Each structure stands twice: as structure tokens, then as C-alpha cells.
């Protein structure tokens, strides 16, 4: 294989590994702008991955699997929001519990069931796919990848331009003041969590029925946490956040490609390398952040 081929391959797999993160990142970004640190992102992705494979196997349609993934993400978002806001349970506790619960549940269910493999179809853009080096990585993809072209600008528009987004930002910044102004703070926060759940679900489902075609135990492997880190180190800006995701995706692709390139390394070290790299890079590139003011204490709400 030529060097160009190698680069092209790494790019391809880098992009594929980035996509699930990017979907989830759009969701988490919005939730955090509204002031909720959504720890259950991992649960959303993992649950959706499992649900999509199970549904795809039952219906024979990978697309049905994707939809199921979104629904599971929504469901977890709903549970999280209601526990955290209506019952006033600490949102971190809710998140950690949900993560542990979904991990245990999916790990158990996968041992007692067997699923057929289904994958969503590939789209390959004529002409563009022939561009050297980047043509194949960018323009031969499973179709949900192209949804990102919609989801990213939509997320940005919602947060920065829509009334809903204005209220989300207000709620994320100064919930007391927002409340006095007549905004239903917790309702907005729950809605933000639903958006987050839907997108994290899409990301998780894409990982399963888009990339891999099957479910393995703990297949998200902490990607939810990586996304949370990306939002934080991306200083609550969508562009930077996505950049962090790309970084992690590429590092992960490098890890997978190294053995094929004939390089050997301690395998445990290899596994953690992308996480480390992404973290270090995000730390280096982070600037003085623009943290939503109430994210520091997301559960203190004096609204009546």
C-alpha cells in the first residue's frame, strides 16, 4: 500500500469514528448551554446502540434500528430530566446510576440473545469520491453520516438564533433571573435533555448499525465521557467541540491502523492513547472558557 492509501484509510476510519461523537456532541453542547451537565450521555449512546441492533434484527431494517436508537436516547433523556428536575435528585447521581444501569443491562441482555447483523446502506457521491486522498474518506459513507450536515447547523441555529435557544441560554446562565422573567426553567432544561437524548441515541445507533453492524458489550467504551470532555474543553462552542471530537476520532483511527502499518506497541497503552492524546490536545488548545454560569452549580434552582 502506498503512503497516500494509508493516509486515506486512516482518514476514512477517523471520520467514521468521529461521527457518533459528533452527533452526541451536538446534543451535549445544547444541554450544557441550558445548564445541565448530562452525565448520562454514555447511557444514551450505549442503550441506543443495543436497542438499534435488537430492533434491526427483529425488523430486518437497519433504518428501523436507527429510529429505535433515537427513541431510546429520548427515553433516557426523559428519565434523567424527570429524576433530576421533578424529584430534585442530583443530576450527577442520576447520570452515574443510569450509566451503570444501562451498562449492566445491555451486557446481560447480549449474553442471552443473538442478533442478525444489519447495516445501513452506503452512499457514494459520484465525481467527488474520486478526489485523491480525501475523496473516498469523505464521500463514500453510510447515509446517516450525511445527517450531520443537517444536525450541526441546526443545533447551532437553535442555540444561537431561535427563541427556544435564547431561553436555553438564559436558563443556563442565570436561572433565577430567567425565572423572574417568566421562563419555565426546568421545562427548558428537560427539553434540552430530550434534544441531547435524541442525538446521543442517533450517535450510539450509528455506531452499532452504521459502523459495526452488531453490538458488543460496552461498545461505546467511554465515548460519552469523551464527548462531555470535548464540550468542556471546546469552551462551550460548537465548532471547537466538534474539533475535539475529530481529534479523538483520528487518534482512535491511528491506534487501529498502527498494527497494520507494522508498528507494535504495548496494547494497553495503545488503547488509552487516543483518550490521552485528545485530552492533552484539548487542554493545550483550550482558551479561557465561556462556561454557562449556572453549569458550575447546575442543581441549585431557586425558582418557585
Amino acid at each position, binding site marked *: 500500500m502506498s503512503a497516500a492509501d494509508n493516509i486515506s484509510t486512516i482518514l476514512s476510519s477517523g471520520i467514521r469514528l468521529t461521527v457518533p461523537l459528533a452527533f452526541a456532541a451536538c446534543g451535549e453542547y445544547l444541554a450544557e448551554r441550558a445548564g445541565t451537565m448530562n452525565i448520562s450521555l454514555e447511557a444514551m449512546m450505549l442503550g441506543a446502540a443495543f436497542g438499534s441492533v435488537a430492533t434491526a434484527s427483529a425488523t430486518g431494517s437497519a433504518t428501523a434500528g436507527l429510529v429505535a436508537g433515537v427513541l431510546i436516547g429520548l427515553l433516557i433523556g426523559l428519565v434523567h430530566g424527570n429524576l433530576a428536575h421533578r424529584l430534585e435528585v442530583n443530576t450527577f447521581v442520576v447520570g452515574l446510576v443510569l450509566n451503570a444501569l444501562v451498562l449492566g443491562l445491555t451486557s446481560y441482555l447480549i449474553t442471552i440473545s443473538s442478533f442478525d447483523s444489519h447495516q445501513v446502506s452506503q452512499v457514494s457521491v459520484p465525481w467527488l469520491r474520486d478526489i485523491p486522498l480525501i475523496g473516498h474518506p469523505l464521500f463514500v459513507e453510510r447515509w446517516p453520516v450525511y445527517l450531520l450536515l443537517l444536525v450541526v447547523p441546526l443545533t447551532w441555529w437553535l442555540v444561537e438564533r431561535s*427563541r427556544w435557544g*435564547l431561553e436555553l*441560554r*438564559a436558563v443556563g*446562565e442565570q436561572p433565577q*433571573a*430567567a425565572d*423572574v422573567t417568566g421562563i419555565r426553567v426546568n421545562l427548558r432544561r428537560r427539553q434540552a435533555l430530550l434534544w441531547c437524548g435524541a442525538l446521543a441515541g442517533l450517535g450510539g445507533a450509528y455506531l452499532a448499525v452504521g459502523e459495526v453492524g452488531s453490538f458488543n458489550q460496552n461498545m461505546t467504551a467511554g465515548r460519552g465521557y469523551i464527548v462531555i470532555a470535548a464540550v468542556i474543553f471546546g469552551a462551550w462552542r460548537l465548532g471547537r467541540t466538534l474539533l475535539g471530537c475529530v481529534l479523538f476520532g483520528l487518534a482512535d483511527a491511528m491506534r487501529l491502523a498502527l498494527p497494520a502499518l507494522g508498528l507494535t506497541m504495548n496494547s494497553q497503552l495503545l488503547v488509552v492513547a487516543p483518550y490521552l492524546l485528545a485530552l492533552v490536545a484539548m487542554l493545550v488548545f483550550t482558551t479561557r472558557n465561556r462556561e454557562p*454560569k449556572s453549569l458550575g452549580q447546575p442543581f441549585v434552582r431557586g425558582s*418557585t
Partner: protein
Amino acid sequence: MTTVDERARELTPPSTPALRLRGISKRYGPVVAADNVDLDVNRGEIHGLLGENGAGKSTLMKILLGLVQRDSGTIMRGDTPVDVHDPQDAVALGIGMVHQHFSLIDALTVWENVILGDTGRIDRAAACRQVEEVSRRYGLPIDPTARVERLSAGERQRVELIKCLRRDPSVLILDEPTSVLTQAESAELFTVLRHVVRAENRAVILISHKLAEITAATDQVTVLRKGKVVFHSATSETTPPELARQMVGRDVSLRAEGAALGMLPVDGPVPSGEPPAEPPPETPAESAAASSDAAPATTGTAPALRLRDLTVVIDGVTVLSDLSLDVAPGEIVGLYGVEGNGQSTLGDLLSGLILPSSGAVELAGRPVELERPGALHRAGLGIIPEDRHSSGVVLDMSVAENLVMKSIGDVSGRGFVSRRKMHAVARRLAAEFNIVAPSLDAPVRSLSGGNQQRVVLARELSAGPGVLVAAQPTHGLDVGAIEDMYRRLRDAASGGVAVLLISTELEEVMALASRIAVICSGRITGVLPAAEATAERLGMLVGGVAA
């Protein structure tokens, strides 16, 4: 939003109650915040609401706004009882409020704040136009695209007003609107309010601690004490001393009244040579003041606080430029100027919140390493910040915790906080500073505005600082508390503390300071010994004209 004037004309004639409260009561545990309150608010009138800190004024207004649920009583609009469960209900009823602690979102722009709480699509251009239109109609100039965090208190107040007025309220409530305003800004506010009631026939409820304002601006006045209505009268039929007596429930000293009236204290007004108000006689303060009067910069003793060529640039804007000022031990130096001329930046700097671009702060002759968090505090500088709500207290921590926060070492042993010691200290401070709280374990959020202030004052004054910076220390305090505050600052100075008093109130600096430095556009335009400081000379300096 062009309908305001037309609609105003259709309204009922003046003096029909826009709002009636009957038997409103509200308890917080043992605290009775509202006790069977009856209140009529008429269209076309400004209704003044007076009361000591913690009397229940804000609570009553929050009930009207649906932010607090009453225990009993009825709210009537005209003759029909109405329910106000949440702020949305209040908006629907045409009740708008400018809160004691501003309710704007700092990170948003002016127009975004103004349309917050509306429904429908966002039309930026239309929103900006509306802001400009309302701002022109009422004479409240503001840039709709400015970010609120950049605005001065006076400008924020304008935004709050514009936000309320744009919704065309029939009842406009203002909770201590002038406590953060300069005199000019207050005057501007009252012009707007007069227009709002006379020309547009709205009802206004005005809460204030300044009796002079109440007597000058209102038509009716009601006094609350411990949640009860103790006095009501047409403003023209009562006098400030009467109101003061009703508030406190006893005769008040002339000086306190003077302060509350927003007038110069009787024993030391002004222009002609005499220092406006002497610190208590035979104190070191006087001698220090005298010597610094003679030659402020060259006194033999090292100044306790020396600001040297401080320059602060924020986002390309020079907010402070080459600011230098010395404060000697035992001296009160007043930094006087119109709000928004760099005072709050200086306050932030001395709180350790921001770093200067150049220049130094020296305490007792030694430069402070400003980069180190807490360095100023450790070097013996106490500060009463201007915005006590956001940087003075932790609202969700208890009164006791807030009181001992800066001296946590004194109340802990072996790395643990001793609750017993903490409570002992807190109890002592609460008694000394007359802090009225449901309990020492209640969160500071549950205290009245004035009592929250007292928590900060108690903590900073009790830490025994060598230098005390007090930014607008009397904002939001009632008559008695202002008097008490003045006494404490004088006592601190006579005990050898160097006091830097940052104030926008002329009477305040004239009453307390032995030297007055005037700040304008981030630079000191002049320093005058109090004896030579006349209202005219200061006025010129404030306007940037060197004396």
C-alpha cells in the same frame, strides 16, 4: 408596541384602584413577612412603600408578581379577585417589576434581554427597533446590541425599565430602583415615572429607603413595619420626620434622618471651609487627615494603601488609566464620581477578580502579588464589594457560613470546621450588626436585601483589616443602618484603619471623607481636602474639568 399611548387614553380615569390587596399574609417559619396587608394602588399615582430592612416590602411585591405564594388574602384587579401563581400570570395581568437585584442575563445583549419572556419568532431587527423606540419615547438612551455585562448599573436599570415598559404594564413596581443610581440617573428615572403615571395613567409602586425621594416623587405613601401596614397617607399630608418615625417606631436622630433624606447631615454641610463632618474628636483620624490634607503624597508615614499607576484595559477599552491614590492609616479617602467611570473596575481589581494591565497595589509599603488568589486578603485588605449580591455572599450557603467564610481558620481545629465555634462567632456578629435572619443556618438567599448587605459588612469589618475598601457601602440600607454604617467606618478609621470609600453619593463622601478624590473616565481628575471640597468644585472635577 405603538399602542401604548392610545391604550392609555382608553383607560379609566385617575384614582381608580388598579390593584387592591386585601388581608395578604405570608410567613416564613417564625418570620412574618406580610401580616394582613391591605393596599390600594391607584392609576395615575406613584405609591411609595417604605420600611426598614426586612419589613417585608420585597416579599409583598413578589407575591404580586407570583414569585412567592401568599398564605392568605386576595389580590384584586379593579373589583375582580385574580390569581397570580407565577410570573406569566403577572405579565398577563399587566404587572411589571424592576427587581431589587437586577433580573437581567449578563451574557445576553440588551435586545435579547428585552424580548426574553415573549413568544414567537425572534426578529432581531424588529426587537432592536422596539428597544430604540421605547428608549426614545421615555428618554432612556441605550445601545440595543450592547452586552449587558458591559453596562453600568444605571444603564442596566434603563434596560430593566425598557423591558418592563415595552410590555405596556398597567402596574409598574420598582424595588429600590435608585439605590444603585447616581443623582442624575435618579432624576432621569423620576422624569420617566412621572410621564408614566401622568401621561399614560399607569400605577407605579416605588420602594425606597430615601425619604427625600419618597416625599418628592410619590402621591401616596405606605409604611410597613414587621410585615404590617403601620401608616398610610397622601404624601402631601405627611413629613419626612413623621415617615422616619413610623418606619422605625420611635424618634430617629437628626443625623440619621439627614442621611435617609439624602441630604447633607445637619452638623456639617458644606462649602465654606469647615470640614463637612468631623470624625469623632480627639482621634488619630483627625491628625492623619490633617497631615494628609497638607501634603497628601509626601507624608512621612508609608500609606497603608497605595495604588500606583493602575491601568486596566478590557477588550481594548481603557477602563482605568494611570490611577494613583494613597490612603494613610486612620484616614478616610472618598473616591467620588459618576457611576460607570471605572469605580466598579477598581472594586473588582481590589477584590482580586481582575488584574491590572500595568501598575501596582501596595499595602503597608509592600507591593502585593496580585496574580495570587487571596493575596490582597492576606495582606490585610478588606473589601465591601459594590455588587454584594453577586460577589459578596454565597446565596445558597448559610448565614453563619457566610459570616465566617474569610476567617475559616479561626473557627476550625485540625482541619475541621467547628460548628460550635462558627455559630458562636456568627451569633456575636449577627447581634452586633443587627442582622435579622430566620436562623443562622438559613441560606443567605432568604434574607431581605438590606440584611444580606449587613452580612457582608459584618464579615469584612470584623476581620480586622488594615485597609478597608468600601464600595457604595450604604446602598440598600435603611435609615438606622446607614447611620450605623457611617459610625462604623469612622470608628474603623479612628482605630487606625485606612479606609477607601468608593461612592457616587456626594453627601456620603462629604460626610465621611477627609480627602476626596474624584474619578472620571478611569482617571483621577483631582484630589481635594474635604475642607476645600465644595459641591461646585467637585461637580467640575466629576465632569472631567481639572480644578
